[in-house]
Each structure stands twice: as C-alpha cells, then as structure tokens.
C-alpha cells in the first residue's frame, strides 16, 4: 500500500455535479477532486450528507446519467498493464472494458439493482453471460454460481428466491456477491450497509473485507459512519462541501486529525463508555449552488483567518501520504 507502485486508479481534478431544474444553476457536488486508489487497500471516503462522496464514486465508476454531469477531469484505470482513461469513454465501452472485471459497484439500496420479477439466479446468469460470452449454458452457469455461493457462505435456496422474499441484509449480501463474482480489481461500495442493523452490518462488512483481501483487490468504501471506517479502512479521505479536505492512514486521521472539520467531527461523536460532554459543529454546510469564497469550511471554522475567507487552500502534503487542505498548514509542505 505504501510502496511506490503506481496506483490502480488515479482520479485527477474531477469536477462534476447536477444541473438544477429551473435554471437555478449548476450544483458542483464534486469540486476539483484528486485521489489515488492503490492496490490491495481499503480506502474510505467519509463525510456528511451533501459532501459529494456518493457523487464522486458514481463518477469514478462511470455511472454518469442525467442530471449528473461530469464537467472536467480524468480518471485513469490500470488494466492488464495498460492505463485506460475512462472518463471520456461512453457507457457501452465502459460496460465492455471496465465494469464487473475492473471496477464494480455496490449501491446503498440493493433494490435499485435487483429486478423484482427475476429470481436471484437469473441476475447472476446475466452477469456471467454478459462477461463470459453466450456460449455458457444456463446449467454450467448455475453450477458455477452454486459453488461460488457455497464458497462465500450464502445459502443455496437464495438462488431460487425473488428479491422481495429476502431480508434487507440478505439482499445486500447478494448484491455484494454479484459485485465480486468477476474478481474485479477495485470495488466501489456506496454506503453498502446503511440502514441495516448493526449485527447484520458487521457480518456483511466482514464478508466484504474477507473477499477483498482474498482476491487481492481494493475497496473504496463510501460511508458517513466514521466508526465503520475505523473498523475496516487502511486509508481515509475526508470530504466537505465537494472537496477532499484531508487524506491519510486511518490510524493517523483518527489519532491526529489535521483539518479543523475532521477535528470537530471526531470530537462530536459519542462513544460507548464515555459520558464526557461533547459539542457538535455549529452552523450548517454551505449551499453548493453558491459556495463561500476561499475555504468552504471557513464560516464554521473556529480557527478561520483572513486568508481563509479569500484564498482557497490546496491539498498540501505534510508527511508522505498525509494530505490536508487548510491554510493552518501552509509552510509545512513535505514536498510538491
């Protein structure tokens, strides 16, 4: 993870967002974001509602449909030694070259990808046929799927069930195993367990982590839940109002958060066994139709200086692999 090996995915200067109806303008949900995904890592993207984390992974996956628009930026993905730029591909090309085998996606709401009138087995057969060619017979496919299910510990009856017959947790396990069946290099998971009970969530995350490690793949976990990041990610990126404000190893971010937003967020979280009075953030996130000038966090920041209201801070590297976007750390650049 920390070697000098070239990243698996390089996200460069992405600007994307939503065209707001009534010509009220363009909501820039993701604003010049740059991020690397390394091999064999679990990286978390954390932040609160409206920070752009979901939009970012949608763009990374290349699922860009109206009203979502990618304005500029590049995404490079490694595939068999080549570097492909996928932001300029159309959806057909992505489907052929990228989806399932290189990048796959686990959405928050499993029902959005499961067809309610099709049995679970037919969902799997469809993926296998699309990816492995139509010469695969249904019988062979079912055989392969059944042994795959056994490997990952899903009961066989699930194959013959319709989506609505399964519990929310089981549906999410199905969607997860669909995303993993073609052994993708990178899995993008958008709040994969939000809304599930904590025990079920724990079991599903354990499944995902185990599969990712076994395949030697990488996982991008999008979640608002800092606790979940602490339980499973190697590195984290913290987003606020469309920007990445901080990147680093999870251990460093949790033990020594650099950005004032990260500090306030971590401070606000109640923990079991600790009753010390805590304070939440004041104010609310900015309206992204007209974000504040300078640093987007400055109206809520207890350390805001004059420069913060005028100049937007860039990401600076304070230590190798440790990035923060805040004027407090000017002059602490490691290099760049």
């Amino acid at each position, binding site marked *: 993870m920390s070697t000098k090996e070239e990243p698996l995915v390089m996200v460069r200067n992405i600007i994307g967002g939503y065209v707001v109806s009534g010509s009220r303008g363009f909501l820039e949900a993701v604003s010049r974001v740059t991020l690397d995904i390394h091999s064999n890592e679990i990286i978390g993207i954390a932040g609160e509602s409206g920070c752009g984390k979901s939009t970012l992974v949608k763009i990374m996956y290349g699922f860009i449909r109206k009203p979502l628009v990618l304005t500029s930026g590049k995404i490079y993905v490694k595939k068999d030694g080549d570097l492909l730029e996928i932001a300029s591909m159309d959806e057909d090309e992505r489907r052929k070259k990228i989806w399932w085998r290189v990048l796959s996606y686990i959405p928050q709401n499993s029902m959005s990808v499961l067809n309610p009138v099709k049995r679970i087995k037919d969902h799997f057969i469809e993926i296998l046929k699309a990816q492995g060619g139509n010469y695969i017979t249904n019988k062979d496919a079912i055989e392969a799927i059944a042994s795959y299910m056994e490997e990952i510990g899903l009961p066989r009856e699930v194959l013959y069930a319709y989506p609505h017959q*399964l*519990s929310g947790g089981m549906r999410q396990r199905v969607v997860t195993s669909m995303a993993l069946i073609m052994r993708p290099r990178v899995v993008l998971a958008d709040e994969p367990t939000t809304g599930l009970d*904590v025990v079920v*969530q724990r079991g599903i995350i354990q499944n995902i982590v185990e599969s990712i490690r076994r395949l030697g793949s990488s996982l991008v976990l999008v979640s608002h*839940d800092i606790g979940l990041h602490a339980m499973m990610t190697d590195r984290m990126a913290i987003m606020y109002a469309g920007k990445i404000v901080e990147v680093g190893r999870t251990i460093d971010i949790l033990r020594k958060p650099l950005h004032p937003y990260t500090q*306030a967020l971590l401070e606000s979280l*109640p*923990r079991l066994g600790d009753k010390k009075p805590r304070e939440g953030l004041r104010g609310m996130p900015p309206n992204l139709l007209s974000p504040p000038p300078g640093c987007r966090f400055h109206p809520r920041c207890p350390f805001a200086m004059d420069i913060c209201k005028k100049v937007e801070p860039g990401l600076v590297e304070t230590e190798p692999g440790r990035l923060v976007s805040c004027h407090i750390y000017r002059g602490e650049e490691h290099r760049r």
Partner: protein
Amino acid sequence: MKHEMVVDVRDVEKRFRYGVFFGFTFKALDGVSLYIENKPVIYTVAGESGSGKTTLARVILGMLKPERGYVLYRGRDIYRLSRKEIRWFRKEVQAIFQNPYASFNPLRKVYSYLLDTALNLANAHNKEEAQDIVARALEIVGLNLDDVINKTPSELSGGQLQRVAIARALIPKPKLIVADEPVSMLDASLRVNILNIFKEAKERMGVSFFYITHDLSTAYYISDIIAIMYRGWIIEKGPIEGVMEKPSHPYTQMLIESVPEPDLDKREKWLLRIKLGGIEEREFIEQGCKFRSRCPFAFEKCSKEPPEFKLENGVAVRCWLYEDRYNKAPS
C-alpha cells in the same frame, strides 16, 4: 405507590396482522412492562428494526391501543381518559419524531406553530405572553427569533427544524417527551447538539424523556436507564452503566460488540467472524426464547419455555443463563 410513577407500562401486548387473505398476526409488543418514576430521567428504549420500539412509543403516546395490558400516566389509564383529561395528557406528554419535515405543514410558517402552541397549551393569555414563552423555548434549543421568523419548514435545515420541533414540544412545559429516533436523520456532527438540549431540558426543566433509538452510542451519552428490545420483548433493562458496561443478555452483548466505533482498539474484535442468519426470519412465531436461534449459548430449555426476568448485577435480564441464580426480579 403507583401514583408516584409518571409512566407505568404494564404487560402490554400489541398485535399486528399481516398477509392479505390469511389472518396471520404477530406480536409487535409481547408483554412489555416498564416505568418512569417521578423524577426527571432519560429512559432509552433501544433495539433494531422490528424490535417493537416504535410501537411502544406510539402506545405510550396514546396513539395505539394495546390489546392487553395498560399504560398509566400519573396513575390514570391513558386509554380511558375523559375529554378533559385528554387535554391534560396532550399538554403533559409531547412527542418528537424522526423526520421533522413530516411533523410540520410545509406551507405554514413555523413561528405561527410555536405561537399557537403557546396560546393553546401553555396558558398564554395574549399574543405578547405567547411571544415571550416562544422566545424562551427558542433560547433553550439554541435558536434566535431571526432564524425562524417568516420561515417555512423547507427553508430550515434538518437540524434547525428538529430544534423547532423540540421548542414546540417544550412550550407546554411537559413532564414527559417521547422522542422516536430524533437524531437519526441528522448529520453525525450535529446529533450531539440535539442530545445536549435533551439533557438540558431534563436538568433545567425537569422533563423526562423516552429516547427511542437504534444507536447505542448516543443512548449511552444521554440516558440514565435503558431497556433493550428484541422482537417484541424487553430482554434487558436497568441503569445505563450496568447494561452497557457489563451486558448480561447474549443479545445485548452481541449488539454492543457490533457497534462500529471510531476507536481502532476495537477493530480486531469487531472483525472476529460472526454467523449471519438464514433467508427468512421466523422468530416471531417460535416458542421459547425469541433469541435462541441466533444465540451462541442456547440450550434445550431455551426452545421450550420463554425465560422470565432475573436480576443480575442490578439489571433485569430475560435469559435462561441466569436461571435460579437469583430470586425473581420485580419486572
């Protein structure tokens, strides 16, 4: 004795029917008892989806009549109140729900709601008095008049509107507020602000709370007492420290261990493999202990008879593991 309780829920059973043609019923609440004494407390009812916690909240609020058992509010059965008593109950017991946008008419200015509440339920004699009362309530929830005046609900953020909902609940000077998942729709960094308001209302105004939640970290932060629910049963209840720091019931243990926390020391244990259930959940209709099919310690007796409450370290726990070790606890 009974009259010293603010709320006394006794052996309540609430059934729901499901299935279109066949009359299946299941017990959303299956013999639930709990009480709040006459001193301000924050009482958490925690459980996962389907545990019955929201049904319990609605039963306590007088919105859902149980089939069996009763709910006493200051000694009076809330489902047998006279018209005058209903008015009194509506003033003394307030509710806060998960989605504040659903609790307000989207077209009406929120300030007019607050004024009306002050006029109707807080004995304000005229508009000036009502404005005073509203101003004090807004101060407690940390809002300025400028934040709310002339605003419709959609012009406020979720956190602000939830504060307005709390202000409205506080205006009649209630004795009890039932708050059903009041912070689960809010961003994590704002939740603790709302929880602090609850604490302050308890301490400064003597309001008691039923805090209904699935989130054990916030429950630990604000509550004095907690009841853990599982499939219509309370399976463990007692002082918050007793239950959360030394959980007795295997389900409570599993639940607490599974909460993801921003604490790396917890990671190794959290990632220890757990078993997930099968495709269907049949626990509602089974006999014996409802948790036994998921319980790592289940033995023969657990599938035959439902366990009774036993007292373990000052906490009432419903589990056969603790049979005969102590006398039967007053439930």
